[in-house]
């Protein structure tokens, strides 16, 4: 999802760039005497085409997140964590990272869209692994925890020992296009927040005792939603 949304954002910026530079070129061309109307016509066609392209991108993004179209089931968060960690198996080997699962058997099912939750976890785990990418030697462990916080809520946490969050950025990291990576587009955590909030949950970040960052998200348990 991180990569997917990143490429969607990129795809959206491309037609916007085409539209702006074409429109600004046209403004200059019509000021010429005589104006080259054939050139302006070609430009307008490109602008129409780019506009359609942008609309398609937004449609796809909406398709990913549309409420009501998501498929909500009672899901075992522990099972989802295990599935995502398994999915990342080869990545962890390549990046020489150890993922430790500390899963609370007492967590109750949540009412959630499996694909969307997997995407949130995937984003958080990939971020955690990337945060430690420049750590030479030493600890390269990511810890994923689930906890039954109360009878009504489950908290999932992803803890890394990378360089940690920059001071004062705990909120900012969830803003769209906020990134500290060379290649990221800063959409991963923004999308994670959108998904978690659509599930009536909450996501937040804090510094941890290993010097890294921990991302938590709290979801209501399925029975609690029905009440």
């Amino acid at each position, binding site marked *: 999802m991180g990569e997917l949304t990143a490429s969607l954002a*990129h795809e959206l910026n*491309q037609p916007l760039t*085409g539209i702006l*530079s*074409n429109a600004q070129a046209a403004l200059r061309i019509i000021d010429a005497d005589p104006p080259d109307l054939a050139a302006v016509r070609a430009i307008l066609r490109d602008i129409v085409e*780019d506009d359609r392209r942008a609309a398609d991108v937004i449609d796809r993004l909406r398709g990913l997140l549309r409420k009501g179209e998501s498929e909500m089931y009672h899901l075992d968060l522990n099972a989802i964590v295990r599935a995502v960690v398994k999915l990342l198996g080869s990545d962890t080997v390549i990046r020489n990272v150890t993922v430790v699962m500390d899963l609370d058997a007492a967590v109750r099912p949540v009412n959630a869209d499996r694909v969307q939750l997997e995407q949130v976890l995937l984003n958080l785990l990939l971020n955690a692994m990337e945060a430690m990418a420049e750590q030479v030697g030493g600890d390269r462990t990511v810890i994923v925890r689930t906890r039954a916080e109360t009878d009504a809520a489950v908290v999932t946490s992803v803890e890394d020992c990378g360089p940690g969050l920059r001071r004062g950025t705990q909120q900012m990291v969830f803003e769209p296009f906020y990134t500290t990576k060379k290649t*990221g587009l800063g959409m991963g955590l923004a999308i994670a927040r959108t998904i978690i909030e659509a599930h009536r949950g909450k996501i937040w970040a804090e510094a941890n005792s290993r010097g890294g960052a921990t991302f938590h998200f709290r979801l209501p348990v399925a029975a609690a939603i029905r009440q």
Partner: protein
Amino acid sequence: MTRVEPIVFVVDDDPSVRRGLDRLLRAAGHRVETFASAKEFLERSEHDGPQCVVLDVRMPGQGGIELHDQLVASGRDIPVIFITGHTDVPTAVRAMKAGAVDFLSKPVDDAELLGATGLALERDRRRWEAERSFRDAGA
């Protein structure tokens, strides 16, 4: 003295962005050549005259930053203006330290782009004239 026309090179993988920038720069009076990839650009013979490159950061294959690094490493001191789809401060800082003229975010506004290309071409004209008089003196 022969008058050599400056060229603005545009490297971006997106055809629509290429056409838009090409038209805009032409409408402002520049001679422009566009390329769909770093590879295509590197295959073009070196232009003997003032020049600058408008370079997309994110492209499939070799990205803009890598292309710039390669140009610098091979001694081709062409002024580079980066254009990028997202604000990425560390990359921008790195690019500016490596000698980029500017780092503009997409969608690129004409005033910014034309300001940066004007500056880049002026800077490169001085470089080129110095090189040429050095060559002429040697010949």
